[in-house]
């Protein structure tokens, strides 16, 4: 076994190096079209990070689901549900923040576990199970709020509105720390990222997630509790949605039952652009981070240059393709 050394593959062929290449290409684009230097200000990057955090949190949970071979279309709706629940509990019902946070996490996780159970126990295709959850959770969010936004303006019995104070947590989450250099939501995102990294790379459950995504039958025969692992991945995704929903509520100062529409595609895109395969079994949370940054910067660059809607969409399509092709060509 003398030949069991680590292989001398060129580092450029590793997935992360390739994904990084795409990110660097987008950054170069930013440096080129810097909107009169705006791209070189830290504030621009800080704002980009803030804007992308909610998506990033969703993408963290999505990464586990996708590695396990599933997909979660319900993230946007669960986000909305969590955001209205949180606003309702804290603004209208005046719950203390810790309890409200716990309740929200519970709601998000319950939804995730529910999708997970449909996939794992009832053997539904993940696409259908989470699509159903997507529709259901959106309906629930609308039903809970009666179709209105949960904001500081609280309707009184006589039909007028009274303005109540926002709980301090809202302000805090929406603020920036470290001498205004980083948004709190970005830190929340980084924390989620770290936790998911621990789950996927350091814990036994993480190894099982990769195994289930790689070959479900072989994993089952090796004693991996496949059903449980699937349920866990969706549960974690639900948790991430709840966190993202609360962040969204804090940043919008309200709970909007229409929030997060279409976020599922963005979150999946971020995971997949990093290089994680939708076939499952491969990928990593770092690739997701790179994907999140790539999309985030792309958006930001187009935005600071005030590119018109039509051209912005066309450019997004073209640049995404170019970035992914760049990843491939180095293989």
């Amino acid at each position, binding site marked *: 076994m003398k030949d069991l050394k680590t292989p001398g593959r060129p580092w450029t062929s590793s997935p992360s190096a390739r994904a990084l290449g795409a990110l660097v290409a987008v950054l170069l684009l930013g440096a080129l079209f810097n909107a009169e230097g705006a791209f070189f200000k830290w*504030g621009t990057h800080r*704002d980009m990070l803030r804007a992308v955090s909610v998506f990033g949190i969703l993408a963290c949970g999505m990464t586990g689901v996708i590695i396990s071979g599933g997909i979660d279309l319900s993230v946007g709706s669960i986000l909305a549900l969590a955001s209205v629940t949180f606003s309702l509990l804290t603004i209208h019902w005046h719950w203390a923040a810790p309890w409200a946070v716990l309740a929200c996490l519970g709601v998000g996780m319950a939804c995730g576990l529910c999708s997970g159970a449909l996939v794992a126990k009832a053997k539904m295709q993940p696409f259908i199970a989470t699509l159903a959850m997507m529709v259901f959770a959106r309906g629930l969010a609308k039903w809970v*709020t009666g*179709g209105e936004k949960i904001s*500081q303006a609280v309707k009184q019995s006589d039909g007028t509105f009274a303005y109540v104070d926002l709980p301090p947590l809202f302000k805090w989450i929406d603020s920036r720390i470290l001498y205004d250099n980083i948004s709190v939501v970005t830190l929340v995102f980084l924390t989620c990222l770290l936790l998911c990294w621990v789950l996927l790379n350091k814990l036994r459950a993480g190894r099982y997630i990769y195994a289930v995504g790689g070959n479900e039958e072989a994993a089952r025969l090796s004693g991996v509790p496949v059903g449980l692992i699937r349920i866990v991945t969706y549960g974690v995704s639900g948790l991430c949605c709840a966190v993202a929903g609360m962040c969204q509520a804090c*940043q*919008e100062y309200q709970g909007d039952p229409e929030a997060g529409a279409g976020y599922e595609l963005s979150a999946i895109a971020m995971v997949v652009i990093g290089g994680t395969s939708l076939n499952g079994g491969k990928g990593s949370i770092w690739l997701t981070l790179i994907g999140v940054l790539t999309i985030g910067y792309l958006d930001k660059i187009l*935005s600071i240059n*005030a590119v018109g809607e039509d051209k912005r969409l066309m450019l997004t399509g073209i640049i995404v393709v170019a970035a992914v092709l760049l990843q491939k060509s180095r293989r």
Partner: protein
Amino acid sequence: AKKAEQDGLTIGMSQCNLGEPWRVQMNADIQQAASTHPEIKVIFKDAQNDTLKQRAQVEEFISAGVDLIIISPKEAAPLTPVVAQAYAKGIPVIVLDRRVLGDQYTCFIGADNVKIGRAAGQWLVTHLDPGAKLVELKGLMTSTPGQDRHTGFMEGIKDANLNIIFEADMKWLEANARKEMESALARFDRIDAVYAHNDPGAHGAYLAAKAVGRESAIKFIGIDALPQEGQVYVEQGILAASFEYPTGGQEAIDTALKILKGESVPKEITLSSRIYEAKP
């Protein structure tokens, strides 16, 4: 303002989304109004219906140092702080169409959806016999305009003997409106009028009725009256009436010029709405 002398004035316009024809029209109106003033340049940004994106855009305008900001906000509460921030930095802010909270802005220009809804209701009261049966095709009910157009309408028909026999959320989309109207037609043999929260909705309902030959028995009314949409429909006799919901684009540029010239402007400008009616 210093660089204004050399390369004119820059106005940042943040539109909350460009998926609705009415908002496309608003941008077009602003562009049109600005084009007669070569000294001003308008930068348009579109927030794709995302509050947080819109917030980021206003931040970008602030750091780019524009001379004036026009914002048509998606949401009141979440955009209030960033508008206030710009205002505090001495950048005048014109808020268009939807409001922000408090008074940390220069001027609000907008029409009143409740009032327009009420006008629509009252129009039906005068044009229908008592006991008439109505269908209401609502816009997205989680959106403020949808809620206001509904509230106003209910006020308008409050005392009259009109029954809403069918209501559905068509989410502002013509295809949905047509589908919902088909259901209403299948269920009810008598429908006297359809009130849709926008003109495409009313048009979709009209097409559904026309397919079963019942369009002449029903009065269709809509809101927005865009020149290429509602006004056409009215002119062709498809809609009985359409209630203009002005974009305020022209007014915004006029006001902006006044502000930039240092003139004083009112804190609130309410736009008047016109009714377009079919000739009998």
